[in-house]
């Protein structure tokens, strides 16, 4: 006697995939094959859903219900920052240990903070922005041609104002 809106009817699977590419099915197939889903088709769906993050490793959520799977990207601060850097595509096998030494505008960081706000426990947009700046520091890029930590200090000192929304 299945009640309406039974959360047990929906299965969620999480996996890491490189954006825009049809990855190896070996990891996926044993989990989704018995549920009636073709690993090949799901691989293609994942590639389509991650087109915007081409070449970047992202976490993908597969929502499986009634023999159908819907793929969506779980946004993460690092993948959003690297995407914003708009680096040229690279051959991951040949070019290793890349430095993400590009520059982002503070507006780009604030836009990323808006996307990540729901996931973050930060009370205000300013606190979420500081979290994203921290991620930018880890990645090694610059914000407004400065060290991201300097921007954090400027926000704390009130020199830079971050909007409410």
């Amino acid at each position, binding site marked *: 006697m299945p009640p309406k809106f039974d959360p047990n009817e929906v299965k969620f699977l999480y996996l890491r995939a490189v954006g825009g590419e049809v990855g*190896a099915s070996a990891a996926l197939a044993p989990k989704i*094959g018995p549920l*009636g889903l073709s690993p090949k*088709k799901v691989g293609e769906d994942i590639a389509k859903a991650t087109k915007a993050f081409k070449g970047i490793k992202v976490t993908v959520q597969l929502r499986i219900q009634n023999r159908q799977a819907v793929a969506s990207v779980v946004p993460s601060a690092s993948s959003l920052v690297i995407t914003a850097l708009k680096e040229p595509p690279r051959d991951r096998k040949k070019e290793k240990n890349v430095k993400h030494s590009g520059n982002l505008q503070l507006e780009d960081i604030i836009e990323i903070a808006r996307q990540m706000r729901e996931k973050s426990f930060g009370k205000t947009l300013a606190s979420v922005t500081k979290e994203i700046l921290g991620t930018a520091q880890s990645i090694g890029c610059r914000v407004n041609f400065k060290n991201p930590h300097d921007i954090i200090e400027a926000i704390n000192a009130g020199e830079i104002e971050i909007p409410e929304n």
Partner: protein
Amino acid sequence: MSDEKYQLLIDWLKQDNSFYLSPNIQIIEDSYGGIGLACKGKKYLNEKLISIPEKYMINIKTVERHVHMQDELQKGDEKERTKPSQNIYHKILHEDKNIMPDEYSTNQLIILFMYVEMFILAEKSFFYPFLQTLPTFETFLCSVPYLPDLLRMKQYEFKNKVSYAFLKHSNTIKRRIMDDWNTIKHILLNLNHSLDDDANTSDKSRNTRIFQRFLHVSMLINSRCLYYDITEEKQDNFTLVPLVDFINHSVAVNGGHCYPKVNKLTRSFEIYSGSTTDFEGLNEVFFNYGAHSNDFLLSEYGFVVPNNPSDFIDITPRVLKLLNPIQIAFLSEIGYLGDYTVTYEDISFRTIVALALVSITANNVAITTEQKSKMIKLINGTLYETSFNYKKLLHTILQEELDDCHEKLELLRAEKEGGNKIITTFNSNIQIVYEGYLQILKSVL
């Protein structure tokens, strides 16, 4: 449903200050002659439309609380003991010694409770304003094809008309209903039905009436329960909620969409708007009950949805006919035995695996190591289905299914119009199921 019944329900709910109903919401008769909720004017995304306090819901927690409260009151002063609700529960729990709640499933306890409240206490029940808005048994008799079968009404034979998927699912439901009946019938038959029984009522007629009422309550719970977290036991986690159960199902998520949410603080059941819209006139609001096929909707709730994107065709019997015992054993070993389906523009991977196995192995010959290895590569994703010649087999199966659909549709259309309401509703619903099947088959053939 009459205005008086609706007003009685609202007045009852309003006794609790935490009940909320948006002034833009009102009850309507939907296009199928049933009841729905509609909204007029502007509604905003995530706006609260309805809030029902927990005490008005029927679930295992509220039922236990209600029954024990009534039982405790019975131990109070003599004036209180004359109340029928206290007498009936005291009698069941203590005097008859028939019921040890731990021996019964949650569903059975709630069936018992609703039976007593609806048919023994009737207007004296606390839940009467809610219960009197629920559908009648005749509504279910017309819309749920296996109910006449449970009542042995042989003139409404449906098994040769319905699909395999429907038959399989409805058999599971029938078994569950009969298990519940066999477990609790001794309690129901011993209840004092003083409102209905008289010296002229035969035992057989009385038992039939009680069974019919039991079926009515079972169908009400089955078709109207909503998921609600109560305990860690899966069987406990459902509830019936007044007013919310008027909201109908739609596969489309559009301006009329709304969604449920349980308030974790107050445990109220709340309904929120799924979009910002400005309706001119009345527009029905819908839920999406879940991605369910028409076979499922018909067997669980008694309705179908034309052009249902969640429809699928279960071709398991046709595929199993092609398999020999060795192939069946192998598929069972790798976890791919059974559940072979076809959906819109897609064949289930399980079906592909089974047909791929048939295509590479000959009948009555052991499966070679090389063939097993090829199959393992297929299910592991290192070999694609294009490496197997299964399409001809699949085409044959789908063509057989198509011919069967056409045959059944002709049978349904040939039945005379102007038959009684039960036959007309069956045929109309089952036709919609098969029309969905035809669309699926057209998309894959």
